[in-house]
């Protein structure tokens, strides 16, 4: 029983600091039991755990291990030699200034703040990025007008961005950290006041700029000239940050009313960027000290470790703040992406929007632009562009896609109350999965694949419902208009989206480099024989409905220049979609046949792993498709049967398969070349098809006939359609 009645650890220098300690720990009456504990514990058996009945090994497993650098974020604070200053202690010790900051200091602080903001937007925690800036901890204490206005604006900016990203809900933990650690975001200052304060600073600076400007017939001395330039550098930044917040705010105005303003502001911001980039060197720079894992040299007012103790007890994450140049690069990219977002309200149907959103996603945009895109289409009130209901918007889309009699004013069904009831009840169920479809395109590329798989169940259920509604409507319609039909109409539309989702799911596997080359044959087969051929049929079916609807409309206007009508160009067709689908099918047909040719030729060996089983891999790859009833899932056995070469061409040779692949690529190329204004995507596909056509042609001619070298699938030209290379 040593050291009894000790209220402090023996190593503590007596007295000093005890006041604080007693306060916080006075509820305890400590007694040292070190020796006792040690000896008692050593009497335990090897591997024996002493614990209460309600605490076991399982619970013990989830404890974080102290002093393990991988788990213990708190270790950091003790391993650095210098003292970590908070805003108050830094102010007291004179490490930071809150008045009369020089212009280089202000420029440095602003540029570093932007770098921190960008690092946060790239998925790091606020505590380790934006709030390493001590000025943001207490902006109201700052006397310097410019720094104060900037600090408050920065807080508003962070708060607004956080709100947007949270609302859009298209982020995962790897994209964005929304935790605020209880920091105050200047909620008592309105956005208008925050930007107003910045404007005042701007006006002050503008006066200096005017005073120091070179005037006709007057020689400026070097000092004035320099002052002019440096003031202009600061002015550009103050203006930039103000306009940046205003730009973001204008995106969240109701009914997309702020879009024209946003467009204007983005142009202004893009003009300011080069000035800022050229003057980065005018700001104060950190010393050239050694960079640690979590600690790095900074300029006045920035303390990388100030919030270390706020971090949650998870494994430590090391944050490398972007350089000032990189930050500007990121912001420039963001502005260009936002420029694309401003064009979204011009899009008219759901299908065009899905296409545009998927195109947007292909460049792997940042989480903020993704969120703003989502919110522009579906703001908080969940109306399309804040105006139309999702139901009305989708109805319009369906009319353009398949012109269902029930939604066509010319049809007798249109005003039938029972039919209306069926359709309205069905549309209620449509909204959720179709909103989800839009949202999927907003997630990061890697996550999208999972989400496509998940949505299939919902779409499949919706399709079954649609088929039922179609059946009812068909019965009613045949009584009113015997020559028209309603079978697989609404259902066909849902099927179109199911197929698109399935295709997106499989194609994402290529982009994410999930498939091994020895898996290509069944993936290509599934795309070529199943999904794309279903897609083409679905589109043809929809196109026929459109045609029927138009001829119906024409026949109703009989008597008025009937002959002209026959030659009249169709208003709505799905020709473009059909051609694109056919081209896709031919491409995958080409790849499939090429791969089969390589296998016969001995150029592509199947792996012979122990316990390997192709069926397991096959089932795993297409597992999500088992949840869909139409198109039916093709099990492995059936695939083997259907793809058996002997069934179709008993004497298929590698050369004949290369020839078939050659034809496919050629056809794909001609189909794609029929577009008048080919998109970049189509151009890339044409290029790939051309190369593959040539490669297949020379293989047919016996090139590298005896070589066992496997072909290379090169995805540099297109993430999904590779160029085949023989080495």
């Amino acid at each position, binding site marked *: 029983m040593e050291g009894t009645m000790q209220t402090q650890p023996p190593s503590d220098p007596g007295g000093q600091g005890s006041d604080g300690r007693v306060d916080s720990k006075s509820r305890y009456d400590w007694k040292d039991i070190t020796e006792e504990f040690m000896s008692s514990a050593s009497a*335990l058996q090897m591997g024996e755990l002493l614990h209460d009945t309600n605490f076991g090994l399982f619970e013990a497993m989830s404890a974080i291990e102290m002093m393990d650098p991988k788990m213990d974020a708190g270790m950091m604070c003790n391993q650095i030699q210098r003292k970590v200053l908070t805003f108050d202690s830094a102010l007291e010790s004179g490490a930071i200034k809150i008045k009369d900051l020089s212009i280089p200091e202000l420029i440095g602080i602003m540029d570093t703040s932007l770098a921190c903001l960008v690092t946060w937007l790239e998925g790091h925690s606020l505590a380790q990025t934006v709030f390493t800036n001590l000025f943001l901890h207490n902006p109201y204490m700052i006397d310097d007008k410019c720094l104060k206005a900037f600090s408050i604006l920065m807080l508003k900016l962070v708060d607004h961005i956080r709100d947007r990203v949270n609302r859009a809900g298209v982020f995962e933990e790897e994209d964005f950290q929304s935790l605020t650690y209880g920091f105050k975001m200047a909620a008592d200052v309105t956005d208008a006041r925050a930007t107003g304060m910045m404007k005042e600073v701007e006006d002050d600076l503008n006066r200096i700029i005017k005073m120091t400007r070179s005037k006709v017939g007057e020689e400026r001395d070097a000092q004035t000239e320099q002052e002019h330039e440096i003031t202009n550098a600061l002015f550009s930044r103050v203006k930039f940050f103000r306009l940046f917040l205003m730009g973001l705010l204008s995106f969240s105005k109701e009914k997309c009313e702020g879009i024209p303003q946003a467009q204007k502001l983005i142009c202004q911001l893009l003009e300011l960027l080069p000035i800022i980039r050229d003057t980065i060197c005018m700001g104060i720079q950190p010393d050239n000290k050694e960079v640690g894992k979590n600690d790095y040299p900074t300029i006045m007012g920035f303390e990388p470790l100030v919030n270390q103790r706020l971090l949650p007890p998870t494994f430590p994450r090391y944050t490398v703040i972007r350089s000032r140049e990189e930050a500007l690069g990121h912001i420039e990219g963001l502005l260009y992406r936002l420029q694309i977002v401003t064009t979204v309200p011009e899009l008219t149907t759901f299908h065009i929007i899905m296409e545009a959103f998927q195109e947007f996603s292909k460049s792997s945009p940042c989480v903020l632009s993704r969120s703003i895109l989502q919110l522009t289409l579906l703001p908080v009130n969940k109306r399309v562009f804040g105006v139309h209901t999702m139901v009305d918007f989708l109805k319009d889309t369906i009319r353009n896609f398949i012109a269902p009699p029930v939604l066509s004013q010319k049809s007798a069904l249109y005003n039938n109350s029972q039919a209306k009831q069926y359709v309205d009840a069905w549309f209620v169920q449509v909204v959720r999965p179709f909103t989800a479809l839009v949202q999927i395109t907003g997630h990061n590329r890697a996550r999208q694949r999972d989400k496509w798989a998940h949505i299939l169940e919902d779409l499949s259920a919706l399709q079954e419902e649609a088929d039922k509604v179609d059946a009812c409507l068909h019965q009613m319609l045949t009584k009113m208009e015997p020559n028209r039909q309603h079978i697989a109409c609404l259902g066909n539309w849902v099927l179109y989206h199911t197929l698109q989702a399935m295709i997106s799911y499989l194609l994402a596997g290529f982009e994410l480099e999930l498939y091994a080359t020895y898996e290509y044959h069944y993936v290509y087969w599934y795309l070529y024989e199943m999904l794309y051929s279903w897609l083409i049929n679905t589109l043809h079916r929809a196109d026929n409905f459109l045609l029927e609807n138009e001829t119906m409309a024409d026949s109703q206007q009989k008597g008025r220049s009937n002959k002209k009508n026959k030659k009249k160009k169709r208003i709505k067709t799905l020709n473009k979609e059909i051609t694109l689908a056919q081209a896709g099918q031919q491409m995958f047909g080409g790849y499939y046949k090429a791969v089969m040719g390589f296998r016969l030729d001995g150029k592509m060996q199947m792996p012979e792993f122990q316990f390997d089983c192709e069926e397991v891999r096959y089932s795993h790859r297409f597992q999500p498709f088992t949840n869909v009833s139409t198109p039916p899932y093709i099990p492995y056995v059936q695939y083997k049967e259907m793809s058996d070469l002997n069934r179709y061409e008993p004497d298929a040779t590698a050369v004949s398969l290369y020839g078939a692949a050659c034809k496919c690529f050629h056809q794909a190329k001609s189909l794609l070349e029929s577009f008048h204004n080919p998109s970049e995507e189509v151009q890339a596909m044409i290029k790939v098809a051309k190369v593959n056509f040539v490669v297949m042609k020379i293989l047919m001619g016996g090139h590298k006939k005896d070589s066992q070298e496997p072909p290379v699938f090169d995805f540099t030209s297109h993430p999904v359609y590779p160029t085949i290379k023989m080495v």
Partner: protein
Amino acid sequence: MAGEVVEKKDTDKDASEGKKKLSSWLNKSMKVKMTDGRTLIGVFLCTDRERNVILGGCEEYLKPLEGNEKEEPRILGLAMIPGHHIVSISIDKSQLQDSEFQ
């Protein structure tokens, strides 16, 4: 062989004695000082022969308390302190109901 049995008897006695003591500390507040100077306060939940200690609802205090600066603890939750990083252990006396140690 015989000697071993005797020895085992001895350790058995020690062990039961020690276990009793350790058990009486279970679910009591414990303060552990670590080799890097940090202090952890939490509920004693588990230990083993290597004196690894698991504390629940753990709060972390940094050592350097200068002046009258009051230190805010950092909430850690469930934490395991490896035995070889433990400098000292204290138990909250007020929670020990048994007069055994007072």
